């Protein structure tokens, strides 16, 4: 199963003929992703990487039956592309761009309320189901098919955590990068819900950051409704107050926004927390082992 994308996902790329889009589309295809075409307004009717190019997402969806879109357009154009994808009925839209104006996202989310399109990002490394489908910019060779679900804000911390897991033979079911922006399409809680309902995920890792309460709210939800073990790391224990640490969303506004406050709150909800990012792999390993022991004892 996995969450949001799998081997049957039909992917189109918006901004298809651009340099980055081309590079990552080729990468994704060599990884086995079913890329079925792309959209570049004005270049409809041509082919790129041996695939059809369309003028609009609606055309692309009609012709190819695509249900997932990787949006590789500059930040100023990202929400327009996202709305176009949603109007065309795309099920999952992934926005990679870093630098989308936050009020654009506020308006876009309002517009999309009640529609079925799942937005991943912006400012996201993308989403990957190892061995099946990749829509994003992550280095695919560090991922390993398996049963740990990973959700993170940051791309590079996702790579760091995944490589620690892969080094211990722990594969991943799906890795979702929800992005580092303060207003994003899919929050931690929604991804935890999806992992809870996924038969191929046993343990979930949540990698958050300073700023906001999304991680704590997700942990509170998980304490009540999630049967699978949750391991959490929050980056930014060493971050100063009031400074934006790279990501637009990573700023400590109040006491409850600090990494330690969030880690304590998550621990208070009964979950495992990691205080040193170098310990993520080891902590997940122990959580998987314990979960396995429990399953073994029950059967």
């Amino acid at each position: 199963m996995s969450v949001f994308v799998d081997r049957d996902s039909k992917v189109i790329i918006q901004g298809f003929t651009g340099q980055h889009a081309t590079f990552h589309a080729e990468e994704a295809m060599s990884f086995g992703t079913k890329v079925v075409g792309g959209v570049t307004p004005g270049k409809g009717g041509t082919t790129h990487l041996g695939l059809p190019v369309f003028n609009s997402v609606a055309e692309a969806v009609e012709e190819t039956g695509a249900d997932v879109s990787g949006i590789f357009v500059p930040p100023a154009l990202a929400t327009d592309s996202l709305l176009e994808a949603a109007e065309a009925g795309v099920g999952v839209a992934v926005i990679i761009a870093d630098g989308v104006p936050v009020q654009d996202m506020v308006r876009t989310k309002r517009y999309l309320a009640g529609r079925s399109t799942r937005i991943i990002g912006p400012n996201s490394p993308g989403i990957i189901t190892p061995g099946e489908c990749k829509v994003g910019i992550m280095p695919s060779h560090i991922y390993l098919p398996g049963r740990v679900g990973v959700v993170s804000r940051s791309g590079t911390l996702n790579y760091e955590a995944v490589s620690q897991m892969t080094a211990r033979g722990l594969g991943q079911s799906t890795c979702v990068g929800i992005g580092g922006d303060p207003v994003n399409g899919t929050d931690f809680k929604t991804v935890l819900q999806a992992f809870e309902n996924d038969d191929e995920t046993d343990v979930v890792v949540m990698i958050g950051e300073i700023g906001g309460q999304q991680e704590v709210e997700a942990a509170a939800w998980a304490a009540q409704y999630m049967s699978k073990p949750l391991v959490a790391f929050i980056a930014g224990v060493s971050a100063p107050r009031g400074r934006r640490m790279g990501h637009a969303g990573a700023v400590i506004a109040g006491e409850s926004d600090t990494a330690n406050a969030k880690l304590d709150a998550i621990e208070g909800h009964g979950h495992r927390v990691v205080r040193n990012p170098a310990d993520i792999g080891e902590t997940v390993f122990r959580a998987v082992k314990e979960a396995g022991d429990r399953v073994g004892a029950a059967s």
Partner: protein
Amino acid sequence: MDIHEYQAKQLLRSYRVTTPRGEVVYTSKAAARVAEELGGQRWVVKAQIHAGGRGKAGGVQLGTSPDAIAAIADQMLGSTLVTAQTGPEGQRVNRVLVERASRIEREFYLSLVVDRDSQRIVVIASAEGGVDIEEVAGSHPEAIHTEYVDPGVGLLDFQCRKVATAIGLGNRTASFTRLLKRMYRLFRDLDCLMLEVNPFIETEDGDLVALDAKMSFDDNALFRQGDVVELRDFEEEDPKEVEATGHGLNYIALDGSVGCIVNGAGLAMGTMDAIVHHGGRPANFLDVGGGASPEKIANAFRIVLQDPNVRAILVNIFAGINRCDWIAQGVVQAARNQSIDVPVIVRLAGTNVEEGRTILDESGLALIQADDLDDAAAKAVHAASAEGVPA
């Protein structure tokens, strides 16, 4: 991006929000002249720095003659103001705002922010104006009123009336609604992240006036806000951070001894955390971003080395879009062309990692290579704390 109070008030006036009459000046002579031109018997001199907490630090003073205003301005201009928000090093005052003093009947708090939890613009108001709103939130949260704006329809009149009544302005709902809706339009048009008027006042004559103003703008939207960009004051920013931005690097100075050069904001924070975990302290946050060229890495070294507290440098790269061989070339280039007299610890992972390690090995440079994040942080903290300066 932040702007000065006097600039924020200019923007408010352009949206027909009333502010006290005044002018920004750079000399004490000009301060006296402005006081005379404004007329009246009492004026206020306000230090123009981006940090808040000026009042308690002596950055806001009243005077009752143009000579007194000149004297206050003279003492403020060129001085370093240390407030609760500037940090111990303070901020130099290069300009002051001279305003005619207002006759205050009542003070209120009013702000608009993009609220990340509700993912909407929210209006925050309180009858307790002129004080630290976070303190009010802590001590008696019931004194704070919030109103969430639906971006589909914008701020509605009834919401404004609700806020007015909640803070005790039920007798002035019409003028308050005008004030708040103008602030909202400014907030939306100019891509603000935060607009705070603390206090806004009701004068003895019954007018609603923005006595102070603070604005912060969305950096991601500056591409379409040319007029706002014009208001940027680089002297309010750390020169190393400004230089870094010019090179496409995201740098924030901190007070530790381990310099950090990392790709990705999350990993940059994680690297700092690993350093702290090993008993060290990071000297900076630095994200080289995606597509880091050798030149970019060399620039990163130069900026990190400008900090005299740096005793070791940790380069931690997990290359996705980046390429480890380019990063390694940058490290070698920096080490050859710059005098690096502190130990350099390098951890490479991801795309083209073998090529990168080979470049470092073959360079003949005394670089300390690390296997993983934990190893890198341990080695960097050890190097920064070691007695003497290793090779």
